[in-house]
């Protein structure tokens, strides 16, 4: 096996620059393979034989890298010469919740430098949890004349100045999607930087920016971009302004409103209602900041064809939601705040039989004794009314084992089940028992389960269940749960498809960590923080897995173990004076030995990564 891998790697590097050969099987094969979009399919295909490997790499136009530290941009560029679209993910997910220190890394710039040289015709860049500076945005804007789509989700390091540069220089821009980032919002003048001659924008999302923008500039921009199908404005846009935008953009498919609470005159309201009636293409609606019941009826005409309604910034009461949902029979996805309470969720159950995804966010998550919010009753009500429900994110303050059992009985097709009982370690509030049986029911009944987040008081039994039954589980999030190492061991030895495991504040220690040696190579990431793992445990892990690169982040500093394979561990330890973050991020990497003691990181051998671990590498 090893020698053939080496051969492949050598061959692929030879083939890099030379002609591919004009033998017809290759060209025909490439044609066929170019129809493949899924990365997993492509990875499988590339394993068949050398010819297929080559055909696949020449036909691939989009590369997805789930962990930016798993591979170097040079290797990506060498393997895939024809990339036009890149998706990159960086930091561990828990960085969204401030568990990863700032300036941790995941800087896009080195990638951009390589892409500028190797992919001058790059069109799309989609980043999640990466750091991107204004300088990098400028570099992007000037290096890629064909650049079309920029999407930044949960990224940081940049400001609105960077957006201004993009707007100014990217003449072919079709998509600018700025979501939930740590952006330095210096003002809204960036939007005015789109030239008057610029008409190609199809998707614009600046909903999460706070500054006012120049409305006239926006109005003109929307007016001249006739292909615009996605427009999500920020809170500074009033209802009246929204109407003026919409009237010139009746082709919109996705609309994010601004503030929904302006005092309107009767005539203004009528105008708004009339414009919305004409917007027959809108299937996704969001924004609705501070929405008041008063104006919601204007949305009714839009509601009839709505498939995705995001009310997660609109603190509606139950009655208001019920009335609105009565007009949304086609709804597939619904996001709400828990201000709607159980009654509101009952309305979901009765009005939206086609519902597939529900997210209930807490309006007041840090209030220490809130009276309102949703309970298990609301979730159960939805499950009765929405048998197609397969994806849920539910924040609540109380839950019972029986309720969850009922829910999964009604909806056995769950693929994503994320339950957050907000008080850590809280038991079944009726029986005072742990919530083990709840999640046991989930994994036993929902055989298609891919993603699970657990909460509440949980013993190792929960993890036994997960290990035993959750055979399709790919992502597991655990917090304040478990009794001993055994719990984590069950998961690591039991879940064959596990890719991402995130654990915080659990009593799992070195034995648990080291029980996953067979597993880590096929996983994308492991995060452990505030557990019982010690530095010695990390060192041992690094020793046992010589192809791992282990990074231990201590609270007051950072230490890096340099290994051959890149996998970093950030260790957060609960005991003692030293606290560490443990975060194990791994994708299989090509490996190489050191050139010397003072070379901190390893180089990567071409080809090995992709051939050996194609099931884990998305590239």
């Amino acid at each position, binding site marked *: 096996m090893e020698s053939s891998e080496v051969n492949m790697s050598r061959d692929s590097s030879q083939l890099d620059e030379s002609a591919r050969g004009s033998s017809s099987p290759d060209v025909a094969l490439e044609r066929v393979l170019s129809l493949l979009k899924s990365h997993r399919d492509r990875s499988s295909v590339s394993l068949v034989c050398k010819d297929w490997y080559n055909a696949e790499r020449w036909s691939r136009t989009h590369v997805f890298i789930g962990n930016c530290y798993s591979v170097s941009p040079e290797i990506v560029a060498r393997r895939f010469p024809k990339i036009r679209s890149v998706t990159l993910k960086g930091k561990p997910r828990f960085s969204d*919740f401030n*568990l990863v*220190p700032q*300036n941790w890394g995941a800087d896009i710039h080195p990638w951009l430098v390589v892409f500028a040289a190797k992919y001058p015709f790059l069109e799309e860049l989609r980043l999640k949890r990466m750091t991107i500076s204004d300088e*990098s945005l400028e570099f992007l804007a000037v290096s890629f004349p064909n650049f079309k789509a920029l999407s930044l989700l949960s990224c940081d390091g940049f400001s609105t100045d960077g957006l201004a540069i993009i707007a100014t220089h990217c003449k072919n821009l079709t998509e600018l999607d700025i979501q939930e980032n740590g952006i330095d919002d210096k003002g809204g003048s960036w939007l005015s930087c789109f030239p008057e001659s610029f008409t190609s924008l199809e998707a614009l999302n600046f909903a999460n920016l706070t500054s006012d923008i120049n409305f006239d500039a926006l109005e003109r921009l929307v007016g001249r971009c006739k292909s615009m199908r996605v427009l999500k404005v920020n809170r500074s846009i009033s209802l009246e302004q929204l109407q003026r935008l919409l009237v010139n953009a009746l082709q919109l498919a996705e609309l994010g409103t601004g503030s929904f609470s302006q005092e309107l005159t009767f005539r203004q309201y009528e105008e708004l209602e009339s414009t919305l009636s004409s917007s027959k293409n809108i299937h996704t609606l969001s924004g609705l900041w501070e929405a008041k019941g008063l104006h919601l009826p204007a949305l009714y005409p839009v509601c009839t064809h709505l498939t995705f309604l995001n009310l997660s910034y609109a603190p509606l009461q139950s009655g208001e939601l019920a009335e609105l949902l009565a007009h949304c029979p086609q709804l597939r996805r619904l996001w709400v705040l828990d201000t709607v309470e159980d009654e509101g969720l009952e309305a979901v159950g009765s009005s939206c039989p086609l519902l597939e995804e529900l997210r209930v966010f807490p309006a007041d998550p840090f209030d220490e004794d809130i009276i309102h919010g949703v309970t298990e009753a609301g979730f159960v009500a939805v499950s009765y009314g929405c048998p197609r429900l397969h994806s849920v994110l539910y924040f609540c303050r109380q839950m019972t084992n029986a309720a969850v059992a009922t829910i999964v009985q009604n909806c056995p097709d769950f693929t994503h089940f994320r339950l957050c009982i907000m008080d850590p370690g809280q038991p079944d509030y009726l029986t005072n028992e742990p919530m083990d049986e709840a999640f046991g029911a989930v994994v036993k009944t929902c055989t298609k389960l891919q993603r699970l987040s657990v909460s509440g008081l949980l013993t190792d039994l929960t993890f036994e269940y997960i290990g035993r039954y959750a055979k399709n589980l790919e992502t597991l999030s655990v917090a304040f749960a478990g009794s001993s190492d055994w719990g984590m061991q069950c998961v690591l030895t039991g879940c064959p498809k596990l890719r991402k495991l995130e654990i915080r504040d659990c009593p799992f220690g070195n034995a648990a960590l080291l029980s996953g040696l067979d597993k880590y190579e096929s996983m994308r990431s492991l995060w452990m*923080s*505030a557990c019982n793992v010690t530095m010695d445990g990390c060192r041992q892990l690094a020793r046992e897995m010589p192809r791992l690169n*282990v990074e231990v982040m201590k609270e007051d500093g950072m230490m890096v173990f340099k290994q051959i394979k890149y996998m970093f561990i950030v260790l957060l330890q609960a005991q003692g004076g030293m606290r560490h973050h443990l975060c194990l991020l791994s994708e299989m990497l090509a490996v190489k030995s050191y050139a010397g003691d003072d070379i901190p990181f390893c180089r990567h051998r071409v080809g090995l990564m992709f051939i050996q671990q194609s099931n884990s590498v998305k590239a």
Partner: protein
Amino acid sequence: MSKPIEHDYIGLSEQQLPSMEKSSDAGNKKNGLHLKATELRLGLPGSESPEREDHDHKLLSLKSFVSGAKRGFSDTLNGGGKWVFGGGSGGGSEGLFSPRSGGSNGGNGLSGSDSGVGGPVLKDEAAQKPVVGQEKKPQVAGGSGHGNGNIAPVSKAQVVGWPPIRSFRKNTMASHPPKNDDDAEAKLGSGCLYVKVSMDGAPYLRKVDLKFYGSYKELSSALEKMFSCFTIGQCGSHGVPSRDGLSESRLIDLLHGSEYVLTYEDKDGDWMLVGDVPWEMFTDSCKRLRIMKSSEAIGLAPRAMEKCKNRT
């Protein structure tokens, strides 16, 4: 396989180093400039690491580090002489990775709550309450009233990163809360007036609807029930004569002689003893209730009287 190689990329400046780190720092120095050059500079919040200025010139040769990025991938491949932690543009020491909560509670993890640290980003981080994440025990939520036996007297301060809600949503809801006490009376058709009730020494707050009660008597018995598990000295009914006829508060009578008195914060932000004003006036002006220790309540009564006189 080659032995795992450890590199300590943290070189704390002398004054910040705990003693155990100093030896490793000295060790690094022995290895020559190369490792020293790879050291990261850290500091406690608000402090500047003086040595950084020198290193910045050597280390910040790559544009990518203007933004303070920790490392670029290719940099690491090329010998990593550029491991600079934090550092905003121009070599300032913004963005230093430091224990966010300082020394106050043993350094409880890494919260991004200090917007002053971390360069130009995340300015919209709302400040979080102090973190006591590690000592939390499983608890029953107070609101349900079930399983009272499980209530552990542990401070219920916020835990870093919990519940798992993204910063943007957190900050948005924090700055524009759907309900707040100021708007409580103006709420459409709700007819509630929720005010927070805290008790010194109790692990968490409660909320009561003042409109639900018609008199001090009702309020006091409700509070008594709510906080009975925390009251150390039980209050029986003492037949204490009311003061000057102004005080009709049985609550004060009840608590008279116990460790606690009931106080409230009025619209002016002053803390007053409950019971000195007519009930309606009280519900109009009460923003918050606090059951405080008698020892702390000294001096409130005279002020309350003054205010009352000024009003009537």
